[in-house]
C-alpha cells in the first residue's frame, strides 16, 4: 500500500452540541431548499418565512443555552480544533442571528411593494410581456430565505472558525449567497445585477488574496491553525517575512468584507444597487462577521506580533474613518450616504479592535451590535419612502418629509442622531466604548481622528434632518408607504434598541465584557 495512505488518520471528535447553532442554520437552509423544490407556489412564502425565523430563533436559543451552560467561561475547541466555541464566538453568533432576525423581517415584507422587494427571475426585462406573465404566475422570489440562512450560517461558522481553511470555506459560504441576493431587486434590475457582478468579481479578487495569505502562513508556520501560527510567531526560526506577507493578505481579504479603505470601493455601488433589505443584512450581519474574523485573527494568531503590524492597520483605520466621512459629505443618494457611513463606522470598530486588550474586544462587540440595529432600522425606513419607480433614494426627494410623514421623519432623525453619536442614543455609547478602549490601549491618534471624523459625519446626517424638516416638499414628492407588520416590527426593534442601549448600555456591555475572552 502507498505509504501516504498507510499513515494513521485520527478521526476528529466533533462536539455536536457546541456547534448545534451552525448546524441548525445550515440544516434548516437545506430544508428551505427542499421546500422550494417540493411545495406548491402559494405555500412557499409562508413556509419559508416560518422556516427562516424558526431556524434563527432556535439557533439563538441554542446559543443562549450554550452561553449559560458555561461555554463562554470554559471555551472548547472542537472538530479537530477547526472550530472554537468561546465567549466572543458565541456573542458574535448571537449578534449575527439577532440582527439576522430583524433583517429577515425586512426581507419578508410584502405589503410595501406588491410581492415583496425580490423578483422571481431577475433576468426578465422589467416591464416586458414576460415580466407581466411572471408577475401573474410567480409573484415573488422565495429562494432569498434559504439563501439568507446559508449566508447567516456561513457567518456563524466564520466567526467561530479556528483555522484558516475553515475560515476560508466559511467566507465563501456566506459570500456566495450574498452575491446572489444582491441581484434580486424587483426595481432597478440592471443596477442590482451590476452591483451583484461587481460584488462577485471584487469578492473573488479579495478571496484570492485571502487564499494567498493562507498559503504564505502555511509556509511560515506549517499549519493553518491560529494557535500554531501564534506559537510559530514566537518560536519559529524562519524569517517572519512570510508571516507578515501572509498577515497582510489575510487582512486584505477580511478588510474587504469589513469595507475598510482602500478596500471599500465596492461598498457604495453594491449597497446602492442591492435590494434595500439585503443591503440592511449586509451592513449589519456581514459587518459583524467580518469583524468577528478580524478580531479572532488579530487576537489569537497575531497577538504577539502586534507591535509590528498595528501601525499599518492603524493607518487603514484612520483612512477608513476620514475618507468614509469626507465622501459621505457630498453624497446625494441616501443609500450611498449610508454606505459611506458604514465605511466610516468600520473605521470606528477597527479603532476598538486595535486597542488590543480585553476591553478592545468587548467594546468592538458592543459597537457592532449597536451599529447593526441602527443601520437596520435606517435601511428599513429607506424602503418606505417610495414613488412610482420604487424607493425614492435621491436625497432631494426627501425634502419636506417631516411634514408629510412626521413619525417616519422623527424616527429617521433619531437614527441619524444616533449615527452622529449624540448622547442618549446607542451611537454615543458605542463610540464612547470603542474610543475609551482605544485610549486605554494607547491609540490616542486613532481616537483623535475618530472624533474628528464623527464631527465631519455629523454634517451629512444632519443635512438629511434639515432637508426633511426645513425644506419645502417637491410637488411630486414621494409617498411614504404604510409599513406592514413585519417592517414595523423591524423598525420598532431597531429604534428601541438604539434608544435602550443609549440610556442603558450596561445591559449589553456587561454581556460583551464577560464574553471578551478568546480561546487560543
Amino acid at each position: 500500500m502507498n505509504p501516504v495512505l498507510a499513515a494513521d488518520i485520527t478521526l476528529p471528535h466533533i462536539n455536536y452540541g457546541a456547534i448545534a447553532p451552525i448546524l441548525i442554520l445550515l440544516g434548516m437552509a437545506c430544508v428551505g431548499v427542499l421546500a422550494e423544490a417540493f411545495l406548491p407556489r402559494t405555500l412557499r412564502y409562508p413556509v419559508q418565512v416560518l422556516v427562516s425565523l424558526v431556524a434563527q430563533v432556535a439557533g439563538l436559543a441554542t446559543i443562549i443555552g450554550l452561553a449559560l451552560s458555561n461555554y463562554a467561561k470554559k471555551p472548547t475547541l472542537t472538530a479537530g480544533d477547526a472550530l472554537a466555541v468561546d465567549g466572543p464566538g458565541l456573542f458574535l453568533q448571537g449578534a449575527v442571528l439577532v440582527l439576522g432576525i430583524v433583517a429577515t423581517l425586512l426581507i419578508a415584507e410584502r405589503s410595501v411593494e406588491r410581492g415583496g422587494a425580490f423578483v422571481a427571475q431577475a433576468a426578465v426585462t422589467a416591464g416586458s410581456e414576460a415580466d407581466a406573465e411572471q408577475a401573474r404566475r410567480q409573484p415573488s422570489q422565495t429562494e432569498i430565505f434559504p439563501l439568507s440562512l446559508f449566508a447567516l450560517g456561513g457567518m456563524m461558522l466564520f466567526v467561530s472558525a479556528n483555522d484558516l481553511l475553515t475560515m476560508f470555506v466559511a467566507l465563501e459560504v456566506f459570500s456566495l449567497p450574498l452575491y446572489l441576493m444582491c441581484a434580486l431587486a424587483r426595481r432597478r434590475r440592471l443596477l442590482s445585477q451590476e452591483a451583484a457582478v461587481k460584488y462577485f468579481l471584487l469578492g473573488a479578487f479579495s478571496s484570492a488574496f485571502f487564499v494567498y495569505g493562507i498559503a504564505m502562513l502555511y509556509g511560515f508556520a506549517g499549519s493553518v491553525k491560529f494557535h500554531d501560527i501564534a506559537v510559530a510567531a514566537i518560536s519559529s526560526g524562519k524569517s517572519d517575512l512570510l508571516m507578515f506577507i501572509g498577515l497582510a493578505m489575510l487582512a486584505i481579504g477580511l478588510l474587504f468584507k469589513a469595507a475598510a479603505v482602500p478596500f471599500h470601493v465596492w461598498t457604495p455601488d453594491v449597497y446602492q444597487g442591492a435590494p434595500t433589505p439585503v443591503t440592511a443584512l449586509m451592513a449589519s450581519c456581514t459587518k459583524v462577521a467580518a469583524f468577528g474574523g478580524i478580531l479572532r485573527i488579530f487576537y489569537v494568531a497575531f497577538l504577539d506580533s502586534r507591535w509590528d503590524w498595528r501601525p499599518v492597520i492603524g493607518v487603514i483605520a484612520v483612512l477608513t474613518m476620514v475618507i468614509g466621512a469626507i465622501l459621505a459629505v457630498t453624497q446625494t443618494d441616501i443609500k450611498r450616504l449610508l454606505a459611506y457611513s458604514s465605511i466610516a463606522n468600520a473605521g470606528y470598530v477597527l479603532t476598538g479592535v486595535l486597542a488590543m486588550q480585553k476591553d478592545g474586544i468587548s467594546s468592538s462587540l458592543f459597537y457592532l451590535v449597536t451599529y447593526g440595529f441602527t443601520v437596520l432600522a435606517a435601511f428599513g425606513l429607506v424602503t418606505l419612502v417610495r414613488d412610482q419607480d420604487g424607493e425614492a433614494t435621491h436625497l432631494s426627494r426627501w425634502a419636506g418629509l417631516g411634514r408629510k410623514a412626521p413619525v417616519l421623519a422623527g424616527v429617521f432623525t433619531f437614527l441619524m442622531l444616533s449615527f452622529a453619536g449624540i448622547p442618549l442614543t446607542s451611537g454615543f455609547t458605542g463610540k464612547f466604548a470603542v474610543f475609551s478602549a482605544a485610549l486605554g490601549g494607547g491609540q490616542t491618534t486613532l481616537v483623535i481622528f475618530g472624533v474628528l471624523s464623527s464631527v465631519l459625519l455629523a454634517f451629512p446626517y444632519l443635512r438629511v434632518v434639515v432637508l426633511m424638516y426645513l425644506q419645502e416638499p417637491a410637488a411630486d414628492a414621494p409617498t411614504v408607504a404604510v409599513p406592514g407588520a413585519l417592517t414595523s416590527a423591524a423598525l420598532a426593534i431597531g429604534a428601541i434598541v438604539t434608544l435602550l442601549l443609549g440610556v442603558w448600555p450596561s445591559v449589553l456591555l456587561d454581556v460583551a465584557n464577560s464574553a471578551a475572552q478568546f480561546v487560543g
Partner: protein
Amino acid sequence: MTLAEQVQYQSATGALSSVWLLIAIPLASAAVLLLLGRKADRWGHILGCASIGASFVLGLWYFFTLRGLGHKAVSLDLFNFIQVGRFKVDWGILYDPLSATFVLLITGVGFLIHVYAVGYMKEDPGRRRFFGYFNLFASAMLLLVLGNSFLMTFIGWEGVGLASYLLISWYQDRPAAATAGKKAFLMNRVGDAAFLVAMFLMFANLGSTDFATVFNGVGALPHGVTLAMALLLLAGACGKSGQFPLQAWLPDAMEGPTPVSALIHAATMVTAGVYLIARSNPIFDATSLGQTIVVAVGAFTLLLGCVIGCAKDDIKRVLAYSTVSQIGYMFLAVGLGGGAYALGILHLLAHGFFKAGLFLGAGSVMHGMKDQTDLRRFGGLWRYMPVTWATVGLGYLAIIGIPPLSGFFSKDPIIDAAFARGGWQGWVFGLAALLGAGLTAFYMTRLFVLTFHGKKRWTDDIEHPHESPGVMKLPMILLAVGSVAAGGLLVYGGFTTWLEPVFGTTEVPGHEPNRAMMIGISLAVVLVGVAIAWLLFRRGTALVEQPARSPIVRAARENLYGDVFNETVFELPGKLLTRAAVFFDGKGIDGIVTGLAAIVGGSSSRLRRLQTGFVRSYALTILGGALVVVAALMAVKLG
C-alpha cells in the same frame, strides 16, 4: 444692630407656618385666570380681586400674630430648591416687621387698585388676562418681600419684572407701548445683572445668599468686597426703582393702563429698590462710602425727577417723574442709615397711598376725558368730577407736605435727617432735599391747577366729562383717606419702633432744637413753590407747546437728556461692540468654519471621482492598496 450680634431667625410656628399662603393664593389665581382662558372671562375679575383680598386679610392676621410674638422675626423653610454639591438653596420665607409692612402695603393698596381696575378695564376685552397678570405681579412682589435669601428675593424681583413688562405693553397694538415694555425690560436687565453679580459675590465669599448667613458674615469681609456688594445691590435697586442713571424707563412705563401705573410703577414694584437697600442694611452699614453713594444717587435723582416733572405736559408723565423724585427721597433716607431707614420706609408707605391715589385720580380724569392725558387739554374739571377733585386734591396736599397730611410726617424728617448728616454733605444733601420739596410743590400745583381749575381747554369731541363709577370712586376715596391719615397714624402709632428689630435703632438723626425752625423753612419753601405755580397757571396755559427759551427748559423737556445719555453711553458702544462681534464672528469664526467645510466638501467631490463605477478601477484600487499594505508591513519588518 451691632455687627457682633448674630442675626438668627426663629422657625415659624402656629399661624405663621402658613405664611406661604400669601404668595400661593394670588399665584393660584393667576394660574387659573391665565390657563382657563376665555372660560373665565365672566368671573375672572372677581377671582382676581378676591384672591388679593384674601391675601390682605391673611396679611392682617399674620401681622397681628407677629405683633404678639416676642422675637418679631420668623423664618420658614419650605423645600429644597437647588442642591449641587456644596451649593444649596432652599425655598424659604422670612416674615419680620419689614416684610409684614410690605405685605400689608402690597395687598392693601393692591386690593384697592384691583377693585378700581374692575371699573377701569371694563371695556377691555382682555380684562381677565389683565387680572391674571395683576395677580401674578402681586404674588411675585410678595415673594420678593417674603424671601429669606437674596436668591428668593431675586426670583420675585424677576417675577415682578416680567409682570411689569407684560402690563406696560398691555396695549400691544400701540408701538409706543410695545417699545416702552421692551425699554423697561432692557433697562431692568442692567440692574438685574448687577444684582446677580452681587449674589455671585455672596456665594463666592460667604457660600450662601441667606439673609442670616450674609448679614452675619458681612462684617468679616474685606471692605472692598463689601463696597462692591453694596454698589452692585444699589445698581440693582436703581434699575428697579428708576433711579439715576437707570431712570429713563419709568416715565415710558406709563404707556400701560393707569391701574398698572398706580400699583406697579408708583406704589409697590418701583419701591422694591428701597426694600432691597433697607433689607441689606447690614451690608450698607458696613461701608460708609457705599451709603454716601446711595445718598448721592437719591439726592441727584430727586432733583432730576422734580426738574423734568416741571416740564412735562402729560399728566401721567408728571406723576411718573414725581415718583422718580419721591423714590429719590427714599433712597436718600435709607442711604443715611441708622434711624433714617425707618424714615425711608415710612415715606415709602405714605407715598404708596398718595401716589396711588393720584394715579387713580389721573386715571379717573382720563376715563372721563376719553383717555386724554395732556394737561393743556384739561381745565375746570372740578365741577364735573367733584370726587376726583377732592381725592386728587388731598393726595396733592399730602405729597407736597402740608401738615397734618401724611407727606408732612414722612418727608420733613428726611430733609431734617439730611441736614443732620453734618459737614458739607449735610449742606449739599439737605439743600437738595429742601429744593426738591419746593419744586415738588411747584409742579404738583401746576398739575392740579391745570387739571381742575381755570378755563376749559378740552378737545372738541368732549361734551360733558363724567365722574367715574362707584367701583372706581371707592378705592380713590379710601386711598385719599390713607393719604390724609397714614403719616400721622404711623408716626404716632410707633412705626419706627415696630421696625426696630430690623434696623436695630430708632434714633432719628436730627437737630432737635432746630426742629421747629426746619419745619418752618421747609413749609415756607413749599408755599413759595405753590404760589409761583398758582400765579403762573391759574389762568391756564397755551394749547400748544411753547418754544423753550432757556437751556434748562430744553433740557428738562428732553428728560434732562436721560435718553440721550443712555444712547451715547450704552447704546452706541453696545452697537459698536455688536458690530465688532458680528464682524469677528462672520469673518473670523465663520470664516474658519466655512473654510474647513469648503475644504472637506472640495476634497469630497474630488475623491468622489475615484468612485468611477468600473470594476476594473476598483480592482486596481484594491490591488494598489494591497501592495501598499504588504510593502508597509515588510517595511516595518525590514526597517
